[in-house]
C-alpha cells in the first residue's frame, strides 16, 4: 500500500516540480487531440446525416399535365401495389403551388405573371427499406420513368451518394490527421517525461543503488505520461464541446440554416470516455518511448 502511495505521489511530485512543462504538455496535447476531434465530429455528424437521408429516401414522380383524374388514380393504384413501394402521397398542382408559396414566400410573385399554374402534380413515393440501395432505386426509377403519364422522376439518392463519398474522404483525412497528431502527442508527452527523467537523474541513481527495480523507477513516469494524456484528451473534449455550442448559438443568432443546430450532435458519453482512455494510452506510449530512448543503465 505504501509502495503504491509512494509511486502515485512521485508521479504527482514530478508533475508539480515541472509545472510549466506539464501545463505546456497538456495544452499542446489538448490542441493536437482537438484537431483530431474536429475530424471525428465532422465524420460522426455526416454519418448521422447520411443515415437519416437513407431513412428518408423519397422519390418524386412528376405527372404530365392534362391527365384525367381516372388516369392519375390508375397510376396511383399501380404504384401502391408495387412491392418495392412503402407509401404513396398525391400532391395536386394546387397543393404544389401552395407549398411553393409557403417555402419561398419572397419568390412567389414570379409565378403570378405566368397565369396558369406551371407546377406539375406529383406522387411522393417512399420506397420499402430493403429497396433503398442505389442499384435497386435506379432500376425502379427507370421502370417508372417509362409508365404512361409520368413526366419525370427525381430522387435524392444522388445527394446520399455524394454524402457517402464525402464521408469516405473525411474518414481518410481523420485517419491521416489522427495518426499524425497522435504521433505529435506521443512526442510532446515523451519529451516532457524525458525532461523529468533528466531532472531527476540523481534521484534515479539513488533509487538504483538501494535496490529499486527498473519497473519501480519507471512506474511514476508511466503514470505521469498517462495522466498528461488523459488531461490533454479531457481538455480537448472541453474545447470541442465549447466550439460546438458556440457554432449552434451562431446558427441560431443568424437565423440561417434554421433547424440544423438540432442536427449537430456532440460525442456521446461512451465515446468521450473512450477518447480520454485513448489520450491516456497515447501519454503512456509517450513515456515508454522516452524511457526507451533515455534508458536507465544496466539496472
Amino acid at each position, binding site marked *: *500500500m*505504501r509502495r503504491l502511495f509512494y509511486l502515485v505521489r512521485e508521479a504527482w511530485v514530478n508533475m508539480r516540480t515541472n509545472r510549466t512543462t506539464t501545463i505546456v504538455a497538456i495544452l499542446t496535447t489538448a490542441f493536437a487531440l482537438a484537431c483530431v476531434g474536429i475530424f471525428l465530429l465532422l465524420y460522426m455528424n455526416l454519418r448521422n446525416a447520411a443515415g437519416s437521408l437513407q431513412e428518408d429516401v423519397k422519390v418524386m414522380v412528376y405527372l404530365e399535365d392534362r391527365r384525367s383524374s381516372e388516369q392519375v388514380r390508375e397510376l396511383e393504384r399501380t404504384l401502391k401495389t408495387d412491392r418495392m413501394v412503402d407509401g404513396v402521397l398525391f400532391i395536386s398542382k394546387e397543393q404544389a403551388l401552395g407549398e411553393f408559396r409557403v417555402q419561398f414566400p419572397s419568390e412567389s410573385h414570379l409565378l403570378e405573371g405566368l397565369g396558369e399554374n406551371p407546377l406539375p402534380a406529383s406522387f411522393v413515393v417512399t420506397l420499402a427499406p430493403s429497396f433503398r440501395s442505389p442499384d435497386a432505386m435506379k432500376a425502379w426509377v427507370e421502370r417508372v420513368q417509362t409508365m404512361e403519364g409520368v413526366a419525370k422522376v427525381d430522387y435524392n439518392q444522388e445527394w446520399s451518394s455524394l454524402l457517402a463519398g464525402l464521408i469516405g474522404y473525411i474518414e481518410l483525412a481523420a485517419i491521416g490527421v489522427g495518426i499524425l497528431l497522435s504521433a505529435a502527442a506521443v512526442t510532446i508527452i515523451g519529451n516532457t517525461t524525458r525532461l523529468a527523467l533528466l531532472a531527476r537523474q540523481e534521484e534515479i541513481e*539513488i533509487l538504483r*543503488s*538501494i*535496490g*529499486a527495480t*527498473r519497473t519501480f523507477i519507471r512506474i511514476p513516469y508511466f503514470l505521469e505520461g498517462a495522466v498528461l494524456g488523459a488531461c490533454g484528451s479531457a481538455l480537448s473534449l472541453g474545447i470541442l464541446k465549447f466550439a460546438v455550442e458556440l457554432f449552434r448559438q451562431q446558427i441560431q443568432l443568424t437565423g440561417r440554416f434554421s433547424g440544423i443546430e438540432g442536427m449537430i450532435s456532440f460525442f456521446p458519453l461512451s465515446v468521450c470516455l473512450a477518447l480520454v482512455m485513448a489520450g491516456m494510452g497515447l501519454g503512456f506510449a509517450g513515456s515508454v518511448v522516452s524511457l526507451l530512448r533515455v534508458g536507465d543503465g544496466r*539496472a
Partner: protein
Amino acid sequence: MDAIIQLIHVSKWHDRRAALSDVTFEIEKGEFVLLMGASGAGKSTLLRMLIAEEQPDEGQIFVHGKNVTKLRPSEIPYLRRKVGAVFQDFRLLPKKSVFDNVALPLIVQGASEKDIRRKVTEALRAVDVDHKNDQLPSSLSTGEQQRVCIARSIVNGPVVLLADEPTGNLDPERTREIIELFKLINARGTTVVVATHDPHVLKDVNRRVITLVRGVLLAEHRVGEGVGG
C-alpha cells in the same frame, strides 16, 4: 569461515589506464575491513563492482554466493538489497524527510507500513538521529546527514555494508563517531568494508586493512600485526 566477498584476478581499465590490476582477495562473513589507498587507487571502482554498478574487464566477483559478473540486469536490484552502501556525498533525497529517506529501501521492497515504521525508527535510533525524523536533510549537519545515510543503508538488515569515503566530508571528531558506528554495526554481525584515504581512520580501527596503490593490491595486514603480503 565463509567468504562473503571474493575477488578473483579482477582487472578493470578506464581509458586504457588500469583502475584495478589482477586483484584477488576474500572477505569473511562478519569481518570489518578497511580498504586503504590514495585518491585514484581504485577503491571506489572496486566498491562499485561489488554492487554491480560497474563490471570488471577480467576476473570474477562473488558477493554472498552470487557471481556478480554474471548477474542478469533484473537480478541486480536484489543483490543491492543485501548490500548496503554509504557514500561520501550522502546521496540523500533533498525533498524528502529524514524518515522518508531512510524508509526508501523498505518501500522499494514492498515492506508493510508497520514494518517500515518499526525498522526506520530502530535504524534512526541506532545512528542517534531519531529526534530529527521530520526534518529535511538540508537542515542537518554533515555528520548527521552521514548518519542518516548509514541508517538508510542498514534499515533492511544487509549482510554487507560498503562505505566509500564515509568520513571524507567530516571533521576528526565526527570521523571518530562514524567509525564507532560502523564498529557497532559490525558487532551486530554485518560485514563492513570501509574505503578511505584517511590514515587517521587507522588509529580508531584495530581491523584488517587492504591497501591499493594505482589499482594494484599492495598489502593486506591487520593494524598492529605488521604488514603481510
